[in-house]
């Protein structure tokens, strides 16, 4: 089974998975949504799914643990923790942060209590920083809660581990000061099993990850054209690269493929001054460009695409696949796939969990202190740069440790109020976890252990934003090693 491509090169094709049960794992079409429930049910489902798994690890790790010479005991309800008694508990983390979005404040300050959706240019500098961070280290509070109540956490350890609203963990510690649980150790849920794959039988083929084209009619088209020609092998002479491209069997586009321009929005609002308020982020021209671009590529390689932050898709996580009519040229093609975001993929037996990065970007706001004093020096201030370009790798790893890829949904990441299930909790540990639209390319291998001693290894990939970096990422499906190639730019 081969497809003709230009330059008479032959490109390899991966085996279509025989059985793949997870392509619909994140599919929640509109007709399933009722909006009658509250968000507590997600937390309940999450705790239900993860508590026993945390318990397994906690009882193993802490069964003989002591604090100040006293043996630690498991306490089932947070409110039953007695002071000065070493205890370990399991609960959902909640981070109380000063700069979380606060609609109450917006509404109170607003004229007719309708929160306005501002354009970027309308935000002042402080507001803009707030968009990037929720945290004020002086007042942030980390709490643990279950259905009985909340405990305030404290301890040096909090500076060393990454905790996040919505994460279910076990904590070991003791109440020394009234109402404050000083923690000394933390455990995460037992990782879910991995589907075994046979590395020997897997051919050395490659998956190519891309994200963040941000196509817009006024933007430059050259990078995209160069990229296309690169993928089709027209620009490459170097032998290594030629063979890499030859063996690249799949292209996965991880979100933010289109971007709206300020101009198109203005037009809409001027014509219809007193009418519509919610501006569409749709631009027919960008869509046409993208559709054409993909359909050209489909001649050469299967393309999978997910909707990201700036794409015309729902804001709620998980995002549903693009409407098929949006890609008029590509949609009919068999090797074109519209993915949910997040999404499970299976390529050459490799189980890949991919998102377009909204989950990480939101989590990142919990980690970065809001340094509004220093921001005075403007957009180019060094602090700001550091904030923007800091590494996200640890957050990606944490997702696997927590066994949850979007803990901050629904608290700060909009999601549908699911009942009875939390789609973001992992019931299978992927071989690869790839996240798009990140500031830079990073990759690592994360090792986690199950209770039975089985070691799992997860390949973590932070896929850079193409518009910002001009890079794409190739992943070897046999070794899972990754390389990035700068196609355009410096």
């Amino acid at each position, binding site marked *: 089974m081969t497809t003709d491509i230009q330059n008479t090169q032959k490109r390899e094709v991966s085996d279509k998975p025989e059985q793949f049960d997870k392509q619909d794992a994140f599919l929640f079409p509109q007709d399933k949504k009722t909006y009658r429930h509250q968000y507590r049910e997600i937390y309940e489902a999450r705790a239900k799914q993860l508590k026993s798994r945390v318990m397994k690890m906690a009882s193993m790790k802490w069964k003989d643990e002591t604090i100040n010479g006293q043996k630690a005991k498991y306490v089932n309800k947070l409110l039953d923790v007695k002071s000065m008694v070493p205890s370990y508990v399991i609960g959902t983390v909640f981070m*109380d942060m000063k700069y979380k979005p606060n609609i*109450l404040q917006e509404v109170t300050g607003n004229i007719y209590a309708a929160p306005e959706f501002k354009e970027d240019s309308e935000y002042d500098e402080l507001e803009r920083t707030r968009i990037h961070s929720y945290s004020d280290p002086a007042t942030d509070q980390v709490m643990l809660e279950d259905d009985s109540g909340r405990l305030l956490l404290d301890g040096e350890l909090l500076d060393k581990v990454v905790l996040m609203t919505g994460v279910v963990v076990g904590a070991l510690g003791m109440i020394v000061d009234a109402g404050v649980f000083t923690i000394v150790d933390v455990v995460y849920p037992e990782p879910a099993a991995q589907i075994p794959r046979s590395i020997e039988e897997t051919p050395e083929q490659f998956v190519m990850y891309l994200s963040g084209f941000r196509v817009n009619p006024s933007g430059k088209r050259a990078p995209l054209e160069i990229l296309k020609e690169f993928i089709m092998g027209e620009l490459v002479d170097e032998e290594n690269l030629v063979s890499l491209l030859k063996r690249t069997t799949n292209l996965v586009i991880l979100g933010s493929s289109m971007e709206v321009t300020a101009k198109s929005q203005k037009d809409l609002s001027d014509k219809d001054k007193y009418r519509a308020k919610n501006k569409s982020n749709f631009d027919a021209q960008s869509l046409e460009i993208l559709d054409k671009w993909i359909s050209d590529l489909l001649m050469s390689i299967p393309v999978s695409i997910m909707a990201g932050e700036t794409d015309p898709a729902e804001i709620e996580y998980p995002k549903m696949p693009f409407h098929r009519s949006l890609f008029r040229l590509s949609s009919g093609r068999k090797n074109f796939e519209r993915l949910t975001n997040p999404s499970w993929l299976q390529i050459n037996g490799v189980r890949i969990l991919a998102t377009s990065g909204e989950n990480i970007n939101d989590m990142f706001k919990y980690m970065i202190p809001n340094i509004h004093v220093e921001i005075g020096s403007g957009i180019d201030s060094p602090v700001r740069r550091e904030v923007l370009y800091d590494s996200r790798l640890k957050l990606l790893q944490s997702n696997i440790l927590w066994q949850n890829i979007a803990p901050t949904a629904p608290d700060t990441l909009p999601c549908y109020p699911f009942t009875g299930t939390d789609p973001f909790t992992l019931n299978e540990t992927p071989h690869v976890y790839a996240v798009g639209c990140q500031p830079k390319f990073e990759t690592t291998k994360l090792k986690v252990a199950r209770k039975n001693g089985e070691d799992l290894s997860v390949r973590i990939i932070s896929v850079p934003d193409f518009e910002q970096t001009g890079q794409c990422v190739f992943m070897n499906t046999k070794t899972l090693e990754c390389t990035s190639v700068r196609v355009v730019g410096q």
Partner: protein
Amino acid sequence: MSEKRKEHESGAENEVKNEVAEKRSIAKSNDETRAIKRRHTEGQTDRCVGSEIPSHGFKIPVHETFSTKKLHRKLTSKQVDNEPSTFEKELVRMSKLDGKGNAEGEASQEWGRPVLPAIDPAEYDIVFQQLDADETIIDGYSAARFFGVTNEGHSVLCKVVGFRHYFYAPVPKGFGPGDLGEFRRYMEANYQGIVDVKIAKKESIWGFNNNVKLPFFKVVVDNARHIGRVRAGFERGEVQFKGLFQPAGQMTFDNVQYLLRLMIDCHIVGMGWLTAPRGKYELVGAAERESTCQIEIKVSYKDLISHAAEGKWQKTAPLRVMSFDIECSGRKGIFPEPEHDAVIQIANVVSRVGEKVPFVRNVFTVKKCSRIVGSDTFCFDSEREMLMAWRQFVVQVDPDVMIGYNICNFDFPYLLNRAIALGEEKFAYFGRLTRSRQEVKDAVFSSRAYGTRESKTVNIEGRMQLDLFQFIQREYKLRSYSLNAVSSHFLGEQKEDVPHSIITQLQNGTPETRRRLAVYCLKDSYLPLRLMEKLMCLVNYTEMARVTGVPFSFLLSRGQQIKVISQLFRKCLELDIVIPNMKSENVNEEYEGATVISPARGYYDVPIATLDFASLYPSIMMAHNVCYTTLVDRATIDRLQLKENVDYEVSPKGDCFVTAARRLGILPTILKELLSARKKAKKAMKAEKDPFKKQVLNGRQLALKISANSVYGFTGATIGKLPCLAISSSVTAWGRKMIAKTQETVLQKYNIKNGYKYDSLIVYGDTDSVMVRFGYPDMETCFRLGQEAADYVTTKFKAPIKLEFEKVYFPYLLINKKRYAGLWWTQLDHFDKMDTKGIESVRRDNCRLVQNVVTRVLELILEDRDVKSAQEFVRRTIADLLQNRVDLSQLVITKQLSRQDYAAKQPHVELADRMRKRDPGSAPTVGDRVAYVIIKTAGDRNWEKSEDPLYVLENSLPIDTKYYLENQLSKPLIRIFEPILGEHKARDLLTGSHTRTVRVASAKSGGLMRFTRRSNTCRSCKAPIPASQMLCANCRPLSAQFYARDLANLNALQAKFNKLWTQCQRCQGSLHQQVLCTNRDCPIFYMRKKVQKDVLAQASELRNWDAIEW
């Protein structure tokens, strides 16, 4: 344990010590360290991730005090998602701060009074602050009981004996000096309780009598009960002696209740300090004690020393203030009734005045309740046990003040009636008198200033009651008086509100659900305490009691007059003056009020100087010696041959008052004292450093100001004790004259003729102020001329009348009489605030939209000086209104449901009736504020169109946007814009292109809608199309655009849905619990409901696209 392990452990210990040392050294820069650490999200995963790590034997430093500063900051951080998660943290903080809490903050609160050392009455002065006083009878004689607290916090009951009540009656002509003995016998024979009849030289307060004192009978009785009949005997002419008394009866003097009489004669003021000196009082023996006070004494009124509230006697004893709240289980749809519904929780917070943290925080619950850190929970199996334990608690904690929210009308009566229903006889004794049973009585309070209110009162002897609900209703004008609204208004907090029906569910659930209720209950009991501190009610009322001399309890239970009466009697006592007991007659005699200079309406873009008379009416009374005692009639003038303007002055009204040289009036004297005391207090306040003492002084100067101003009102109160229209109408007449004179003087001086660049103009003037346009565009000149003019005009009046230059309005929008807005400047470099009078932004019978729009418009016009933007803003708002984009909470109108005897049908009354038919339980009852919106109906009478906002949301009823535009928005907007744009253009704002698009929500049920069928139309051109399509064939190329628009709408709603519901989770302080709150005063309550419907509707709209190819 192996050697190795031991080594390991001790090593760990060392490490810990090092860490501690390090911690100290970096304690200061703790934030920075954390900030830096936080940023390092790179690097290796934590060591504790792997599972194969052996146990270490962790160490947590226990005795090392935590970086308390940091912890304190953490615990008190004012995050905006405030409730009750922060409240729970606040509890933790309190248990840390009171220092006594063990690590769990539990079972450590001691609440008894400090132990009383043995007292030797011969050696020991009892000094206490008097709090509550009442009358009693001891050995057949009237006596007074003063309850108080010593500086050490011991409770005192001081019984004051020996003081006899009395009144005066004039001695008739022809009554010889030898007749007195016989007359006394006559009185004793005919009237019960006569102790003595004496003759004293006194003067009546009424009218100038050339300072001649006349003989009066001082009739002394043993018991306050008897005085009424004796007095009536004189007044009805029943007292007859040798035919000397007029048969028609005669006037009596000095009618004042026993307690006040005693306080006046002994110079005791409310909340003042008293000393029972050693050797003069008697300790009441254990057997005869009637109270639970630690010290119970008896002392003669002659020995009791009262200290004027000056210097060290300004202090406040460590009063115990207890705030509490009860929760009742209810049946579905019925407001709890004590006959049927149990009390399930009582939360208490007790604080000592001046201390930051309440030292008792607890909840009494029926059935087990999980513990709450920082507070005690006392669980009981039965309601009976809980009630009795609570009673015991109150007696032990022995509060001096009991506060709460609506405790007088709800909590106290409910508890007492519930105890009766349970047959628990012993419950109703939690006052300080052991034998006095607490009972509920109905009271009607009627006052011109506060209107008529029915309320319930409970006698709790020895404990002051301060119901914050009553206090706030009395002192503040608010849109709503629910605890939610009040705390959001004063404390800037939204409060979780749990509906009655859910309370029962929570109670019947688990210890955790009961805990949730308990936290809520505790919060409700803590809020009144915070409100009290914030509004400084205790401090201000204390000072008011001290200044006016009345007992504290009078301030809430009585009107304004009693305060003036108390002061008048005190002054009269010094001067041997007696006050006639006038029968109050309801004379509807109107007199002309203050003057208003007709406003020159318009928008002024030059500074307008405002000249005010400082304390106008008091200073008129002082300047012209206006008083009862100086009022003189023509006959007396002729008799004494007084000369006009030398001996007396004629008011513009024609009434005559003698000059100060002839006789200094008593009212001017009181006023002078009040005002000079106020000056002193203000000065002391400036010098004072201690914030608490500063508050006290501020409270005092406020009390003095209010007192001074109420004197004039007292003389004009026609149903009052001592109305005298000659005084009040003369005062206003002088006021009018002065305003006119001021106008004239300013106009004559500041004009082009006199070398000024512009003619000045009096733009407006009201009661005690005039607003002058000098014409100069710069602020500096305006400030200079304003000051100069004020000083100049002052010279034209008698001292102490003073015209003051207070502020400049710039710009200034004068809409009409008593309606204006402007920026208020008192210094040159920046304005202080925006000041509005009589404009919808401060009125409360409008919907919030009007308020918000008016405020914003004024901001745009006055602050930004951008009339164009203001117009544009109005247009956009109107468009939003007509297209149903305004949030429902903005359209809610509230009105209080008073007794239902309205003649005309009113929207809120009709709605309450309709709601009662739907569900009698949730319907508003008399006294509630009814919230409604106006909807479109077949009829057009307003009372038919009101509807419950929730019902509107649930049934998608269409809002009558036209009503809101025409009846709510248009008038205030036209009023504002007319002076600026002119009538025509202002009207244009309300019509035009922005009003052409109208969207109406279509009702789901009712009326014609049942017979209609919706046909599918093209989303673009509205052509009818088959049901499965979204666009017609012609428009199909636009599919993607229309799809994206639907998507954008959905996204906006989804984001809103998420923000709203997570906000409520944060507010309730839990992710795992259901959001139950039904706080209708919260700005996002209706929004939250609405978005649920909207997002669903939009999602189904989007779903229609799924099957469509384009």
